[in-house]
Every structure is written in C-alpha cells, then in structure tokens.
C-alpha cells in the first residue's frame, strides 16, 4: 500500500515570493480554468467541467487518505451521498417526504458537517485495519449504506430517492446556471486542492505520512496514530461532503444509484487513473473518466462502449502504474521550475524505512 501511496515530501522549502511558490504550472492551469467558459459550450461547462471537478473532489478526498495516509477507502461516494441526502431531507424536494425547507446557507454547511462526522466515524472503524482490510471494511460500509438507502422508505425514500432538489438562488444568481455552477465548482475545488496541498506540508500532514510509512515507530515516539488517522478521515469527509452538495445541485436529485457500488469503484478508478501522488491527479483522472463515459458510446456504439472504457483504463495503468501523473512525469519538460512537477519528483528522494 505504501508504494502505491507514496506521496511526495518536500521538506526544504526555501523562502520565495508567493508567485514562485505557486509555480508556473499552477498559474497556467488557473488561467486556463478561469477562461474555460469562454471557449466551452454549456454542456462542456457543466456536464464535463463541473461534473469532473465534483468527481475530482470526491476522488481528492480518497487521494488524501490513500496518498498521505495509506488508507484506501471505497466509501468516499457514500460520504458524499450522506451530504446529498442531508440536502434532500433538510432543504427542499418535490418527492413529498421531509424537505424541511432550510435555507441553503444553513443546510449546505450542515450537510458538509454531517458528512464529515460520518467520514470520521467510518474512519474510526476502519483505522483498526490496514491495507486490503481497510478496502474491505469501507466497501462493506458503502454496500451496506447503498442497500439501506435503497430499501428504507421512511428516511431515504427507497429506490427512487429524492428529486426536485434545486440549487439555491443567492446574490441574484441561480447557481445551477452553467457559468455560475462551473465557477462555484471551480472555487470549491480550488479551496479543497489548496487545503490538501497545504495540509500535506503541515506538521499534521508530515506526521500522517510518517505514520503511513511506519506506524509503530511513530507510536513509539509518542504520536497518537489513531487520532491522526481519524482526523485525516474527518478532513477527507469535509471535501467529499462539499462535493456531495455540489453533486445533488448538479443532478437535481439523489437516489441509491448515486451511492451504489459502481460509483464507489468509479471514484477509486478516477484516483488510480489520475495518480495518487499529488492532489492534481484525481482531477486529471476525473476529466479522463468523465470524457470516456460521456463519449465512448459515440465512438463504438451502444453495445460495447463499456469495453472501450475498460480497455482505455487498462492501457493507462499498464503504460504508467502511477496513472496520468506518471505519464506526465515521463514526458514533462525537464527544465521545469519550482512548480508542482518538481513536487512530484520529490518523491524520488523519499527515504524508505
């Protein structure tokens, strides 16, 4: 697990101007993402752009756990779903069940908080295990939640779930319109991305990575291993929860299909395809996966498009076990400055114990 999840460490950061610290790669990316609405149609703005950012955030929460904590979770979509169902129950829906009509500024933070607590709870159960057993436990949690939501009508409204969930109209803007929705997703994703980058270099992040590499030694020095891991789960829950709120605003509905095993594995695929070494990986993976799932049917027809998707994923992982990040590293310009690509490279001077 640690090999797959060896996120970079860059302990010696010399004092630099903020522009240098951000790095040219980030600036180019930011400019592109900011002017993207000028070039893209509404469909590409929301169905590809917004949706990729949302899935990217959910996968980012997995990357945080797997990359820095060595804990691969299949329950991230479940956490996002918890936030989504909270929005449906406490906000407004037209399924005729609950819908307490809370305003968005109340239900959205509440949903994120509830999701993060659920994530911490799942984490608290899962940290007793390691490696493949963590995967199994989180898969069990995800599956149990899916079936419970599907068969419980009192709280989750069973198979049809909730529909008619509208994004709020605030500050004179309807936030499900293509451009506002895209920028909303972009802003949230940027915050989540920056937070993960920052957390990874913080004392907490470094201790978490140390725990990933050698929990026994960390425990011997006096670190509370369980608390660090559960805290990481809670942070991941905040990100997944925020993505969950955006997801129901995007779909306008939530049903057990949103949190079934297929989507749960989809998140893992996104994270693996993108690469677990750097927080940008999940977003790259999300773009590729969303593009494939949307357009494969136009390339090979309705009968075999899932085969094509599978083959492309296999090809990526076959050529580069580190996903798209690994591909980038292979072909990236060697003169790259102090941008994130050097951060990725930093993993090579990682010391293994």
């Amino acid at each position, binding site marked *: 697990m640690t090999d797959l999840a060896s996120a970079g460490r860059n302990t010696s950061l010399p004092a630099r101007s903020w522009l240098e610290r951000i790095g040219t790669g980030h600036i180019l990316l930011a400019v592109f993402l900011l002017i993207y609405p000028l070039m893209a149609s509404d469909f590409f703005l929301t169905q590809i752009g917004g949706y990729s950012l949302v899935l990217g955030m959910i996968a980012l929460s997995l990357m945080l756990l797997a990359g820095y904590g060595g804990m691969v979770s299949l329950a991230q979509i479940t956490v996002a779903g918890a936030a989504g169902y909270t929005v449906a129950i406490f906000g407004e829906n037209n399924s005729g069940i609950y819908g307490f009509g809370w305003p968005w500024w109340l239900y959205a933070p509440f949903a994120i908080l509830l999701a993060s607590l659920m994530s911490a709870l799942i984490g608290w159960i899962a940290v007793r295990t390691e490696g493949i057993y963590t995967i199994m436990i989180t898969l069990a949690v995800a599956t149990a939640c899916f079936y419970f939501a599907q068969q419980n009508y009192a709280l989750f409204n*069973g198979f049809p779930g909730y529909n008619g969930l509208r994004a709020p109209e605030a500050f004179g803007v309807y936030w499900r319109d293509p451009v506002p929705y895209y920028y909303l997703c972009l802003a949230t994703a940027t915050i989540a991305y920056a937070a993960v980058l920052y957390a990874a270099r913080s004392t907490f992040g470094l201790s978490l990575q140390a725990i990933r590499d050698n929990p026994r030694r960390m425990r011997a020095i006096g670190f509370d291993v369980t608390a660090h891991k559960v805290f990481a789960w809670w942070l991941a829950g905040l990100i997944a929860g925020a993505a969950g709120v955006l997801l129901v605003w995007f779909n306008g509905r939530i*049903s057990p299909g949103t949190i079934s095993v297929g989507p749960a594995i989809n998140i893992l695929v996104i994270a693996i395809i993108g690469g677990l070494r750097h927080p940008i990986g999940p977003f790259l993976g999300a773009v590729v996966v969303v593009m494939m799932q949307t357009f494969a049917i136009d390339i090979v027809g309705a009968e075999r498009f899932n085969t094509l998707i599978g083959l492309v994923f296999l090809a990526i992982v076959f050529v580069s076990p580190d996903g798209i990040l690994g591909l980038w590293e292979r072909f990236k310009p060697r003169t790259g400055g102090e941008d994130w690509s050097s951060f990725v490279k930093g993993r090579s001077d990682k010391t293994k114990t």
Partner: protein
Amino acid sequence: MINKRTLLALALATGLTAPAFAVAQAESVKIGLLATFEGAFAVLGEDSARGAMTAVEEFDGTAGGKDIEIVRGSSDASPDSAVRAARKLVEQDGVKILVGPLSGDEGIAVKDFAKTHPDVTFINGSSAAQDTTLRDPAENFFRFSTDGAQWMAGLGEYVYDEKGYRSVATVAEDYSFPYTQVFGFMAAFCKAGGKVPSKSWVPIGNKDYSSVIAAIPDEVDAIYVALGGADAVNFLSQYNDAGGQAPLIGGSITVDQTVLTAKGKLRDVLIGTPAAGPTADTNDDPAWTKFVEDYKKQEGAFPSPSLFAHAYYVGMKAAILALNEVEGDLSDGGEKFRAALADLEFETPTGMVSLDENRNAIADIYLTEVTENENGELVNKLIKTTPQVNQTLGIDRDEFMALGAVSRDNPSCE
C-alpha cells in the same frame, strides 16, 4: 520543450471545448434513443433498440422528407443515469426528439427533466410507472406504450374466475414499475374477492432469493411474480430448485421473450403461467405477424419481439408519423410536432392507439398464457383481448385518483 507543453495545452483545450464533430446535414432529423444498454436490464435495452430500428427501417430511414439520424444514449436503469444520458443527448447532441427511457423510475426522472427543456419532445420508450403521466405530467412528455397497471387488464378477474385462485402472494422488484403492476393486478383481483396476504419487494439485481422463497406463505393458491430480465430468471430457477409447487401468475415482463428465451430449468415452472401485457406472441392479426417478420430482420432478434421492442417500435413510429405530418418542421420549438403527436391516432401491430388528455396511451391489452410452440420455444398464447384500456382502468378519473399513488403498501387486501 516549450513546444511540447504548448502542444499538450492545445490538445487539452481542443479536447475539452470542441463541439460534437458530427456535422449536421441540412436534411436530417436527429432522434435520441435512450435505453438500458448496461446493467441488469441490458438484454431488455438491446431488444428495445431492435424495436425502434424496426420502425425506422419501415419508413426507409426517413421522416418528413429528412433522413433520420439515431443517436443512442445508455443508462443502467437507475434514474440518475437516465437523466445524465438524456441530458447528454439533448444538450450535447442536440436532439429535438428523444425516445426513451426503458424502466419505471427512469421515466419519472426523465419526465422531470423534460420540464426543464420545453422545446424538446420526449416520447416514452417502455417505461411504465403510473405517475410518469398520471400525476404532475410534463407537457412535452408523451406515452404511446400504456402503463404497467393498464398492462394487467383482465388478469385479476381471469385468475379468480377461471383458475379459481383466492389467495395470492406477490414477489416484485422494489420500484415504481412493479408497484404499478401489482396495483393493476390487485385492483381487479381484490375487487373480485381475492386476498393478497403477503407482498415481497426485492431490490433490482438481487441474486439470492432463498429468503424471499422461504417467506412465501404455504397456504397461498398462487404466486404473482413481477420481476424483469435477470431477476426473473434468477428467481424462477431458484424457486424451481427449491421445489416450489405453487402455480405462478406473471407480470408483463416476467414472461416476456427476454425471460422465456433464457437457458435453464425454467420451462417446467413457466408453462401454463397466465399473464397480461401489451403484446401476445401468438396473436394472428396480420399487422402483428408483419411486425414480427420485420422485427426478425434485426440482428440478434428473439423468436418473437419482447414488449420492450414493441413499446419502442410504437414510440418511434409515433415520432415518425407526426414528423411526416409536419413535414419534418421542428423550427417552432416543436409546437406543431407536439400538437400532431397529441392528436395522433394510428394502427399499431396491436390495434389502435390514441392519447388521453395527460398524453398517455389508450390501447388494447392481451391476456396470455405461456405455452410451448411447435418448435419447442416458449411463447405467450393469446387468451383474450381487452379492448381500449385507459389509464384509469375504466374507473372515473377522480375516483381513480382517490385510490392514491401506487407504493409498497397501496393497494392492500390482506
């Protein structure tokens, strides 16, 4: 180095922004075809596409003087995936007419989606949940394929009077279409005096039915089964293995060709099962036999078209007929086209079809029984035709609405 980076950025930019490459020909009309090409209902989805293509080929691929261009979208029977696929077809591929979806709750979700695109016309595939059109309908959503309660017309009385069943347990999937079917069956069966002491609802894609089979009371006269595709096959073979003796009553898709053609030891449990639905395999009406011939030209066709093929055929044919009427003119946001659809009354392989004020079909329904034909294939033998069944099953609309929305617990007659 710079070149490589620029190139990469360029590739990314074009990849993310390029609109669909298919250059729209001046004289073509795009029709979206939304069905379940993945998941538990994939076999059903493929057959529905055969039905739709049968209609397209019947008109030589033209409608209103323009070439028909079919764009396919796939869902996995979950409402979310159906809306995502519909959104792609409408917002990216730019279809102005969409035929689909296949499954019950998908229909309700797509109906809600339809309200956000009033200039696009949605024609139902085979989705047969009652509330797609009965409650809170969308102005631009049309259903020429009748709903699951209509499909049950005549079955409740038949098993009570002819078969002498007084007490029946039900096993059905846990979503809106089977609710609708159970509602349609019980409406007549309970009215005749029958009792339904036990109802089992199982999730779609369930694999292990042992607990469900064990929970069926011993003293029931028969079991009403409303499961589809792989679920029906799994239940029936496990029921057979468990030595189940009670005779079966079939929901419309339980004894459909998608199940009857499945391999395995289903034969013994299935023969003699009464059911009702919008099609009957042994129908000898020349319109039906011609449809079967046309359908069989499709690749991978079943010995007889499934009701999904039939429903998509009827929906697609309605779209083409209305397009012919307006000469392919959709320039007014489809206003004229939808008006033509609403007034459309046409001869299908299963009799006349017309729409009510909620744009739901009024059509003939067939009572059938599973038999073996001379080739050893299982087919649905036509017993009786119930002519022109409407959505309220002949009951006054207000009275019918008062029965409440279909659900796990409605109706009930223990």
